[in-house]
């Protein structure tokens, strides 16, 4: 197990170097140099230009600049936003809880519906529940989620008036954000109605962001279950006269979960990409909207920092999934 851990960590380091190199080069690949980008259309005097060049280290050789950049990352320094002049690192962590809250809810939504749907489809293989569920999953899998969001807004916010159109919390409530998670903060604040307002704001974004993971998980659970249901030990259990609930629930599901766990881990990238669209549509103040806004306002240090941080999150989660997988499945370790 230890050897496996080391080997897996061994691939993490070069990928980290590569990812940091990509985000480092991003600003330098833009047309124009970073200082001119920072100055915007106003321009600046030559003295100010060379002073800034020295201040940000852009007059040094490129490999030294990269070295400073990596050292900065490791110390939690991602530079300063062109726009707000605040540290990108601080801005990221101020907004990250909003994205995390939304992603966790979306994943819970996807799992709560996707696992049972996959199991029901597998047990009823070829019959109408299977066909119905799998056609629905196909549609979900093919869904342009930005359009799906607009449809839900038209119906639930426009026609029925059940849910708000944007934001995380109704303006009438105000309380300090302790954890950054609106569900927890609103509960702690003890204000009447605050929690239900938080939930109402969460419902549509959760459905939108959870749709594709839901479809993927349902499909994957179905095929994993089908594979396991064909195994000898399941047939033995059936021959012993165990109830089908016990067979499906206990014997089959437990082993079918192994590939499903990997798929769940792989959905983190999908969630992050989905968050970009979902947050933009629902004006959800998380990192997805932050990056889109930063691209729109040419705040390139922010884009750079966001790019790096999101890639790091995806990498760390994948690393974690691989290690968990190694724990569960000894065959992987041996490889």
């Amino acid at each position, binding site marked *: 197990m230890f050897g496996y851990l080391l080997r897996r960590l061994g691939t993490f380091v070069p990928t980290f170097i590569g990812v940091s190199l990509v985000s480092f080069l991003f600003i330098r690949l833009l047309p124009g140099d970073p200082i001119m980008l920072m100055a915007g259309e106003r321009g600046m005097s030559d003295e100010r230009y060379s002073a800034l060049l020295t201040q940000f280290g852009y007059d040094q050789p490129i490999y030294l600049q990269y070295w400073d950049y990596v050292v900065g990352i490791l110390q939690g320094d991602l530079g300063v936003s062109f726009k707000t002049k605040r540290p990108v690192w601080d801005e990221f962590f101020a907004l990250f809880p909003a994205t995390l809250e939304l992603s966790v809810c979306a994943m819970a939504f996807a799992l709560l519906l996707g696992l049972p749907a996959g199991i029901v489809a597998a047990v009823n293989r070829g019959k109408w529940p299977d066909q119905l569920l799998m056609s629905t999953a196909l549609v979900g899998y*093919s869904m342009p989620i930005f359009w799906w969001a607009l449809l839900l807004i038209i119906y639930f916010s426009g026609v029925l008036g059940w849910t708000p159109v944007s934001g995380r919390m109704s303006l009438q409530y105000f309380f300090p954000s302790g954890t950054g998670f609106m569900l927890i903060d609103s509960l702690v604040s003890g204000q009447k109605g605050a929690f239900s307002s938080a939930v109402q704001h969460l419902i549509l974004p959760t459905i939108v962001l959870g749709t594709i993971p839901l479809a993927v998980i349902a499909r994957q659970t179905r095929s994993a279950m089908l594979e396991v249901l064909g195994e000898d030990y399941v047939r033995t259990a059936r021959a012993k006269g165990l109830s089908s609930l016990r067979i499906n629930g206990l014997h089959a599901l437990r082993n079918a979960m192994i590939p499903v766990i990997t798929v769940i881990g792989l959905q983190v990238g999908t969630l992050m990409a989905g968050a970009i669209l979902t947050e933009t549509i629902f004006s959800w103040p998380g990192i997805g909207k932050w990056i889109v806004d930063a691209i729109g306002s040419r705040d390139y240090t922010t884009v750079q920092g966001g790019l790096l941080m999101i890639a790091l999150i995806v990498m760390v989660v994948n690393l974690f999934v691989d290690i968990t997988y190694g724990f569960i499945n000894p065959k992987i370790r041996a490889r």
Partner: protein
Amino acid sequence: MNTVLNTNEGAGGGSADDGADDAAQARPGRFREFWRYFRENRGAVAGLCVFVFFIGLAVFADVVAPHSPIAQDRGAFLQPPFWQDGGTTEYLLGTDALGRDLLSRLIHGARYSFFIGVVVVVIAATSGVLLGLIAGFAGGRTDTLIMRLMDILLAFPSLLLALVMVAILGPSLVNAMIAIAIVLQPHYVRLTRASVLGELPKDYVTSARVAGAGTLRLMFVTVLPNCLAPIIVQAALSFSTAILDAAALGFLGLGAQPPTPEWGTMLADSREFVLRAWWVVTLPGLAILINVVAINLMGDGLRDALDPKLKRS
């Protein structure tokens, strides 16, 4: 499709399941065999029909569309479809906020979607397959280098990487297509490399090498045709991903620019009318969805027919 599958025969041994003696007859039979499997899958055939219908729309857009996609009628802003109050049969599916015929814009949008799909898949697949072949054949450091580079690309969520690349290159449809192609390419590299590594130790490759085939011949004539099945399936699936991602970029204002009748861009234009004019929002998205579902259905059918190993039981 036909020609692609036929090349499989030349390689012989490894994957050809027909007997050796009827190899001569099997040449035309390859496609028929594929079609027999494909036909069994009703969903795939339905997907194919819809796909062909959309291609027809794309090709004959100028003839089929009742109006110009960019002509504005000042007398008909946000006119609803003909079956609703206030709708006319002149604009069957209504008009958008600038008085442009929605039906005509949707029909012309099919053009952009297919253009995007084809260009992205061609760029991603050719470069990806090439890199995969090189990695698989060269092994050693070259292999490690290529695969690590692909790992780096895969560490970024695809839409985010595409967004950032468009930020560098500037927002336009061409740049969006380049970005999406780069993002999709690592999947082809991995797939090709894995199949190449699976084929290399087989006897037919060794015998070709002993017979004096050079590396290039081994790559493209001997091994590649036997790796094609998963690549074709991947091509179908990334066709739909390309359409979705291009629409998403258009929606964020970083893909095709107005007044291009690209479906995602049309959706972006219509966002402010979400609660007032359902048709300008619903219809472009529906076109994207139907298109993508059809292609994914086809992709599932292709996988079942071409590659029994990948079959989703």
